[in-house]
């Protein structure tokens, strides 16, 4: 039960582009994917977003999905990302016996529901596509052979919790591989929701900056293929890294706000370190949740200070590149964390100028080249659903 869990493949699609190559290229060149809205039809088009620059039709065409098939944007993004992950892990060629698919989403088919609500005239078929589980099934059905599927919906930490469930499925021997992550498209529903909470920035977001105003929404999908190290070896796959520890805790402070001392975030990081049997000083880089809201960044920042004290490793929020991809953020940022590990490279926290008075650290302003061994990725959600995952180089 204590066998090492490794990542043997991954896939990603965000405002930075489709695939790992496009992602690392954008990160290296400090080219943000946040910009003007093209596909979402809303009166709030002046909010900058991290939109995936492909229409539904374009994705359907790329994936060979006929125009009459009922499918929404959330699973389309998911299918794009899962294809890359499955290919890299060679799940088709060197098939593990039982494979799980664990998907994180909250929006589900909302982007179509809000177009056809309340009557769904001549579009009844989209009624069944509304719930989160349908998105999971639509993605699962594109790959022959998932033995077990389920959906996690813990808002913005959904994908991180999918990683955790996948690891537990492997450790208990229920499956031999688990494809885990999340997908979420932009919807008017959550754009308006975040707008009413007054946590959206009309300009590019500034995580961990004293003058931060709020977040930019993003969309995307990302998946990791997890398996036991011995199974990867048996299949002849060279893993990308280890998933060395993880934890899920609850802030239990407020439905949508984080506690001032970041108790949930603190416990998630502390327990993930303990699970990984690592000390704070072993962490070489923190890919922060860092939404750019007043509340998150001070809460997460305080929690980081409490864990790491004087020795705070480089911290950056790559939401300044992708926007906040909500339910997909946990896996989008896990993929970015793993790319950082692979390339010994710390992506910059864009748009930072002024240190926060509350914090003893500032985020990484520019790309850094540094030998990385252990990377911590934080994912926090509404309701205080806080999770942390640690990825480590196999050495």
């Amino acid at each position, binding site marked *: 039960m204590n066998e090492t869990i490794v990542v043997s493949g991954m896939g990603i699609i965000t405002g930075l582009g489709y695939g790992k190559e496009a992602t690392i290229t954008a990160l290296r060149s400090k080219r943000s994917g946040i910009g003007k809205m093209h596909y979402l039809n809303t009166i709030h088009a002046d909010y900058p977003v991290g939109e995936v620059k492909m229409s539904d039709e374009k994705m359907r065409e790329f994936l060979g999905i006929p125009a009459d098939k009922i499918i929404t944007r959330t699973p389309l993004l998911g299918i794009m990302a899962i294809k890359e992950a499955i290919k890299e892990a060679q799940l088709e060629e060197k098939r593990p016996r039982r494979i799980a698919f664990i998907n994180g989403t909250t929006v589900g088919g909302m982007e179509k529901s809000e177009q056809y609500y*309340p009557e769904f005239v001549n579009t009844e078929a989209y009624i069944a596509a509304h719930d989160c589980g349908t998105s999971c099934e639509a993605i699962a059905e594109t790959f022959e052979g998932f033995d077990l599927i389920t959906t996690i919906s813990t808002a913005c930490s959904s994908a991180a919790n999918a990683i955790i469930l996948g690891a537990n499925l492997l450790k208990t021997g229920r499956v031999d591989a688990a494809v885990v992550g999340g997908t979420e498209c932009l919807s008017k529903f959550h754009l308006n*929701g975040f707008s009413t909470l007054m946590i959206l920035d009309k300009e590019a977001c500034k995580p961990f900056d004293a003058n931060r105003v709020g977040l930019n929404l993003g969309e995307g999908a990302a998946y990791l293929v997890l398996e036991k190290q011995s199974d990867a070896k048996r299949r002849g796959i060279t893993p990308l890294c280890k998933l060395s520890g993880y934890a899920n805790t609850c802030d239990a402070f407020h439905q949508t706000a984080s506690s001032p001392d970041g108790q949930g975030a603190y416990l998630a990081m502390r327990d993930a370190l303990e699970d990984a049997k690592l000390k704070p000083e072993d962490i070489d880089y923190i890919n922060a949740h860092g939404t750019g809201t007043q509340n998150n960044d001070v809460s997460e920042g305080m929690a980081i200070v409490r864990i790491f004290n004087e020795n705070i490793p480089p911290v950056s929020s790559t939401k300044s590149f992708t926007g906040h991809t909500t339910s997909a953020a946990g896996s989008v940022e896990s993929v970015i964390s793993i790319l950082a590990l692979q390339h010994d490279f710390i992506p910059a926290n864009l748009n930072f100028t002024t240190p926060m008075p509350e914090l003893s650290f500032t985020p990484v302003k520019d790309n850094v080249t540094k030998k990385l061994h252990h990377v911590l990725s934080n994912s926090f959600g509404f309701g205080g659903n806080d999770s942390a995952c640690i990825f480590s180089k196999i050495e």
Partner: protein
Amino acid sequence: MNIYIQAAAQISAQEPMGNAWFQRPLRFTERYVRSIDPNFKEYINPMEARRMGKILKRALATSLEVVRKTGIDHPDAIITGTGLGCIENTEKFLTAMVRDGEMYLQPTYFMQSTHNTISSQIALHLKCNKYNTTYAQRGISFESSLLDAYMQFELGKIKSALVAGHDEMTPDYFVLLDKINYWKKGEVNEAVLRKSDSLGSFAGEASSCFMLENKKTDLTICELKGVDLFFNPSPLRMKEAIEELLSKHNLHINDIDVVLTGINGDKDNDVVYHQFQQHFFPETPMAWYKHLFGESFTATGLATYIAATAIQKQILPVDYLYNRTSTLNGLKKILIYNHFQNKDHALILLSSC
């Protein structure tokens, strides 16, 4: 490793909280049956309840009931399954957004619209900082939650878990699902459901909550032996899974006293249960419960409640038996089999202890 159900609570079409109804359940003839709510004031401060939708009140009341019964006020995990989440709040925000063209919106309904509102409100109320998550996989959302807890017990990560299944059915969602044949078009009664010659069932609501623990106490209702999920399983895969589940506990097919199924009167749904029975448990009594509760994404939570109660009381009244006319006594092992649209399938095995 053993996992025990220490306490259970439900709010459904039957009398809420207690199980006095168990041997004389109510029957329905409507297409849409809403749950009978308890007096929430007994559980929740009215100030707090005022801001909560129905599903949250039910979730909190059932949680507090199992907390009260067991004294476990900081469970190591809080896990909720919900097919639709806080759909009432989702609809309120969506309706206002569509009606007013994205103008004049208030955040309240949005804040409590996400699926994870339920688990997090329970944690908030209990001030519990531990593991907290939410599953939303259509008809197997509850089983997904149970599986998560089961594995964490197995891995020694937790000693207690509050596991729940909650779904409400709003009038608007009832109408939408009616358009895609979720509900029968005419009057519904037991004879119609039993006949199972048309599409659809009748709509119900389900709230159930369980406190699980790794030690047996005076409170223990029954033991949770296993839970498994399957996606599009072949008959061979199902056979393999049943054999694995039974052999893991040194059991034989004949040791299963009854199979509790999700037969609901929908012909496409029910045929899958009949095939399951014929293939794997041809001699075993078959039971049903949805004719007494209606269909809901997390109805299996109620099935678990019924099976646990039947084991505790050592009786399964004829009201629940599909193909027998006399009460079952001396029950030791109940297998709950559930599928959703013949895609998602799940098994739960409960045992006396």
